[in-house]
């Protein structure tokens, strides 16, 4: 069919058809947008799943060519990561953010952000999170509900089933690498009872 034949056809197109086409376009646009995350060839979580043990904080090697877990993950930082699964019990994450550039981010397995914190310069920021499923929270299995008073436990309780916690330490040059690595290793991730026993 030539372009002139197509143009000749246009006057026959009725307003109802145009309206139907626009509605169909909008529906397809919404469906395609919502389906896009599920159609991604590999999500960040699935890429990290092979690298990270469950409920354990792991210090990743220095980011370098061939040793880069995710695209655009920069060598400007050292990373410690924990792939958490709170279906077997609440997972506790504790970390120190000792200086500028340090951050802790928690993502769900779908890549949605659950929590983010950055360090304040000149102030040591201690972060303690308890991640539990919505069912456990509903059943009252939060730390507070299990007998610990709020004063004793400063942990922030968040609903999350599976995901990844990422602790970033900035690259401050060679002189700071050992110190930052030691601080990253001090961070803890594990099922709440096991973490308490280990301490």
């Amino acid at each position: 069919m030539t372009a002139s034949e197509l143009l000749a056809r246009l006057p026959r197109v009725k307003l109802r058809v145009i309206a139907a086409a626009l509605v169909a376009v909008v529906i397809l646009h919404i469906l395609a947008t919502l389906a896009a995350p599920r159609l991604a060839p590999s999500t960040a979580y699935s890429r990290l799943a092979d690298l990270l043990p469950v409920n354990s904080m792991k210090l990743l090697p220095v980011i370098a060519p061939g040793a880069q877990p995710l695209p655009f993950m920069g060598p400007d930082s050292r990373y410690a990561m924990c792939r958490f699964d709170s279906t077997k019990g609440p997972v506790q994450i504790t970390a120190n953010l000792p200086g500028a550039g340090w951050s802790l981010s928690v993502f769900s397995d779908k890549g949605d952000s659950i929590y983010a914190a950055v360090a304040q310069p000149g102030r040591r920021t201690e972060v303690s999170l308890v991640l539990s499923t919505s069912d456990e929270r509903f059943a009252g299995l939060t730390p507070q509900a299990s007998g610990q008073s709020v004063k004793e436990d400063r942990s922030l309780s968040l609903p999350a089933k599976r995901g990844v916690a990422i602790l970033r330490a900035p690259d401050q040059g060679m002189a700071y690498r050992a110190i930052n690595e030691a601080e990253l290793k001090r961070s803890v991730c594990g099922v709440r009872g096991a973490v308490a026993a280990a301490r």
Partner: protein
Amino acid sequence: MRSNLGFVLHRLKKRIAYATNIAADYAMFIGFVLIAGIGSAWYMVDTGSALTTERVGPWVTWLSAARADADPYTRAHFARMGTLPMSTEVAQTLTARYDDGGSRLHSSCEYAVKGHDIAGSWWSLAVFDDDGRVISNPAERYTFTSDTIALKPNGDYAITLARDARPGNWLPTGGAGRLALVLTIVDLGLGSSEKDREEEKNPIPSIEQVNCR
């Protein structure tokens, strides 16, 4: 007998032409819907719009990256990329794939990235290939941060993106082909006075093409 056959053939031709017209109409309808529906979704997810992104020169940032209340386009964008960026609640991540002149960043060219230290923030500037991979180089240099960059006394800096070694802040680009620059600015929540803000220079660096091979 012959006229009867001719009449039947004529009717058959008319019916085939009618059926072809209907089929062509449906094909046009479905084709338009598919191209416009999927194409517009792909554009909004891949490139973004004024609703989801902010552009400063060649730099692009997704306004609600890694936020709990992120819009579906932003969620789909980062899910397709397979990345976990820092939340815009605590940091700003800007990506540039073009220079100030609108040309695609490429390892066959040399660029001067000029900016000013960002007060009250920790920042980093890293170069990747088009797929977000770190570029292999003998100097093992992939990024500069506010801690590692050499600043001028007035707080300005200049980074040279080039294949071969250059004096000063040199970021090697090897033979990576198309490049992507990522600027991450972590807000330290220090705040600044109105006077500071007035005096503060634009924190987003310029990317000037110096030459191409």
